[in-house]
C-alpha cells in the first residue's frame, strides 16, 4: 500500500440513503403507511442535490444511483484505496430538515438504525454520527440515549443552518446528553431552510448558497461562545464538518477585538474567544479552501494558532480535490501526524476507546 494516508482516521465520509424504501424495515407501522400515503419516496437535502458536481466526484459516482449509495464502491474507494484505519459516516438526509418534528424523529431513528445495520455491521472500520431531530431537543436527546450504548456511534450530527442559533439554551438538552456520553457535536454544512441563507435574502445559485456556508458556521461559533455553552458544558467538543477552514482566523480576530471592547455584555465569557474556540472546536480539513501557493497555505494555517484543531477528511464522495491529493504537499511530518491520527483520536473519545 503506497497511500500517504495509511492508518489515518477519515472524519467525514457520506454513505447515502438510496430512497426511503430502504428505511422501511426501521420504521413503525404508522410511518410505513405514511411513507406510502404521503409519497415520501426521496428525501435528498437541497444542500446536496445528487447531480450537482459537489455531491459526487465523477470517478466516485456509482454506475446507478446517487453518490454514496453503493457499499462496495465506498469500501473500495474510501477505505481500501486510502488505507484508512477508521472512517466516520455522516449521513445527510432529509429527516434532519422536516418541519414536522415527529416525522423528523421517526426518520432520524430509521436512518440511524439503517446506518447501524447496513453499514457499521458490514465493516469494522466504519464509525458513524447519530443524526438528530433538531426540531425537538427532547426527542433529539432521547435519540442519543437510545443509541449511546453502541460505541461505534462516535458523534452526533446537526446541520449548520437551523431554527435558532445553536448556543441558545433551547438546545441544551442535546448538549447535556452529548457531553454525558462523550459525543462531540458534529455540525455539517447544510440547511434546514428555516430562514434566508444570507442577511440579504436568498442567493440565486447553488454555488452562491454553498460559498455562503462559512457565514452560517461563523455565527454558530459566536453563538456557542456568547451564550456560554462551553462554560456550562466544559467537556463538550464541536466539530465543524465541511465548513472550510481558512475563514476561521479572521472570525477569531474580529470576535477577539469585539470581546475586548464589549465583553461586559456577556460577563460569563471569561477568556478570549480564540482560546475558547481552540479548546472546544475542531474542523475537518476538506474543503481546505486555501491559496494555491503552498507557502501561503502554510501561513494561513498558522493563523489558526494551533496544530490541534484540524481533522483528516476526504469528504467522500463529495468533490473537493483531484486524485489522491487529500492534503496538499508541504505539511511538516509532525503536523501531518496530528491531522491524520492524533487530533481525531483526541477529539473522539469513543473512537479512541475502541482502538485500545
Amino acid at each position, binding site marked *: 500500500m503506497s497511500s500517504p494516508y495509511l492508518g489515518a482516521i477519515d472524519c467525514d465520509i457520506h454513505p447515502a440513503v438510496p430512497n426511503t424504501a430502504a428505511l422501511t424495515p426501521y420504521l413503525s407501522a404508522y410511518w410505513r403507511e405514511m411513507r406510502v400515503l404521503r409519497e415520501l419516496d426521496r428525501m435528498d437535502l437541497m444542500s446536496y442535490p445528487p447531480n450537482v458536481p459537489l455531491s459526487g466526484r465523477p470517478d466516485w459516482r456509482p454506475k446507478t444511483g446517487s453518490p454514496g449509495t453503493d457499499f462496495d464502491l465506498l469500501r473500495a474507494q474510501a477505505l481500501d484505496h486510502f488505507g484508512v484505519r477508521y472512517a466516520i459516516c455522516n449521513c445527510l438526509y432529509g429527516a434532519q430538515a422536516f418541519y414536522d418534528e415527529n416525522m423528523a424523529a421517526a426518520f432520524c431513528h430509521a436512518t440511524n438504525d439503517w446506518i447501524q445495520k447496513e453499514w457499521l455491521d458490514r465493516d469494522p472500520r466504519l464509525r458513524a454520527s447519530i443524526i438528530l431531530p433538531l426540531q425537538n431537543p427532547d426527542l433529539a436527546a432521547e435519540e442519543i440515549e437510545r443509541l449511546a450504548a453502541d460505541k461505534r456511534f462516535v458523534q452526533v450530527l446537526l446541520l449548520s443552518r437551523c431554527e435558532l442559533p445553536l448556543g441558545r439554551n433551547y438546545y441544551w438538552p442535546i448538549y447535556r446528553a452529548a457531553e454525558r456520553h462523550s459525543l462531540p457535536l458534529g455540525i455539517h454544512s447544510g440547511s434546514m431552510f428555516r430562514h434566508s441563507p444570507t442577511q440579504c435574502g436568498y442567493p440565486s445559485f447553488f*454555488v452562491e448558497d454553498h*460559498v455562503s456556508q462559512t457565514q452560517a458556521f461563523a455565527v454558530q461559533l459566536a453563538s456557542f461562545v456568547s451564550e456560554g455553552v462551553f462554560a456550562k458544558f466544559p467537556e463538550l467538543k464541536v466539530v465543524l464538518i465541511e465548513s472550510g477552514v481558512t475563514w476561521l482566523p479572521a472570525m477569531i480576530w474580529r470576535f477577539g477585538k469585539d470581546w475586548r471592547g464589549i465583553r461586559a455584555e456577556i460577563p460569563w465569557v471569561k477568556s478570549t474567544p480564540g482560546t475558547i474556540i481552540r479548546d472546544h472546536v475542531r474542523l475537518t480539513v476538506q474543503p481546505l479552501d486555501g491559496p494555491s501557493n503552498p507557502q501561503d497555505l502554510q501561513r494561513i494555517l498558522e493563523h489558526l494558532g494551533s496544530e490541534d484543531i484540524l481533522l483528516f477528511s476526504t469528504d467522500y464522495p463529495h468533490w473537493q480535490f483531484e486524485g489522491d491529493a487529500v492534503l496538499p504537499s508541504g505539511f511538516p511530518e509532525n503536523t501531518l501526524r496530528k491531522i491524520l491520527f492524533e487530533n481525531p483520536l483526541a477529539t473522539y473519545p469513543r473512537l479512541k476507546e475502541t482502538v485500545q
Partner: protein
Amino acid sequence: MSTHSVVSSEPEGSRSKPVGSGVVDCDIHPAASSPTEVAQYLPERWRKHVSTFGVRLPNQPTINIVPYPRMAPGHGMRMDSWPPNGGAPASDLGFMREQLLDACNIEFGILQPLSGGSMTTNQELGSAFCNAMNEWQLEKWTRKDKRLKGAICVAQEDADSAVATIERYAKNRDFVHIAIPTRTMEPFGRKRYWPIFEAAERWNLPICMHAPATGYHCNTPSGWASYYIEEHIAFSHPPQTIVTSMILEGVFERFTRLRIVLVEGGFAWVPPLAWRLDKQWQIMRDEVPHVKRPPSGYLREHFWFTTQPVEESERPSDLLDTIRWIGSDRLMFSTDYPHWDFDDPSRAFKIELSREDRKAILRDNAVALFRLNE
C-alpha cells in the same frame, strides 16, 4: 499632531499642511442636532407623516432604540464625543473640526450618513428622506468645510427613485459617492439593482456600502442572534454576500467600471472568501456560465475596503499576510467617528506598515478612488 502625518514626521500646524500630507478618513457619521433637523428638508406631506407615523424600520421591535442596544452611551458613541455646546456627538461642525479633522490631520473626510431613508419600509418616504439627507449634508457640512465630502443617499429598494436621486446630485462634486446599506432586501447582484449600477458607472461614482442597524432578514441564517456582540460579528457577513452575489450574477461582466467600497465590514475575510469562491466556481462553473473568469479576479478589480475596525490578529504580524493577499492598494483608512470603536490613524495598525503602504492606505487610495484632487 505629527504622529498623524503620513509622510512626514515634522510637526506642523494641520491647517497649513501642504496638500498631499494628510489623512483621508473614509467613514465619518455626521449627526443631526435635533430629532427634527433633517425632517425640515422634507416636503410638508412627509414632515407630517414622520411626526405622526415615524420612520418604520425592519426588525425594530422598539421605537427609540436599536434592536441590539450598544455598550456605550448615546447608542455606541465615544465617551468624549459630546460637543461642549450641546447636541449629539458629531452634530457640531466646530467640535468635529477640533476633535477629528484638525486633531487627526484629516485632509478629506468622507461622510457616511446613516440614513433611515435607505432602510425604511415605506419606500416613498425613503426616497423623500434620502433627498432630505442630501440637502442637509450640503447645507450643514460640505458647503461649510471643504474637507468634508458627501454621500448621495438613495432608497436602493426602489431603483427608479434611486437613479433619479443620483441624477439630481451627481454633478455636484460635494458628493463623491453613492451610499447604500449592506443589508439590502435581496443579494446586491440581483437585477433589480442594476439601474443603480448603470447610473454609478455613468457618473463615475463609487458605491459605498455600510452596515445599517436593522435588516429585512435574520442576522444569522439560523434566526436572530441574542447579543450585540454576535450582531457586530455578523456585520462582516453582508459585505461577503455582496461580493459573492455581484460576482456570481455577472454584474462586472456588464458593468466593467463599477467600483464598490465596503465600509466598516472588516477586511480579513477577503482572502479566504476569494480562495473559496475560486475553488467552488471551478467545480460548479456550469451553473454560472456568465462568470467568465475566476471570481478572485473580479474581486481584485472592483472592490475596496475601509479599515476600521481593523481586525487584530493574535500575532500582530499575521495581519501583514492578510494585507499582502488583499493588496495595499485596496484598503482605505477610516475612523468611524464618533462611534465607540473609533480608530485613530496613529494607532489603528499594530503592525509596521511600509512607508508606501501607509501612504496608500491612509491617503492616496481614497484620493484616487473618490477623485478628491479634481
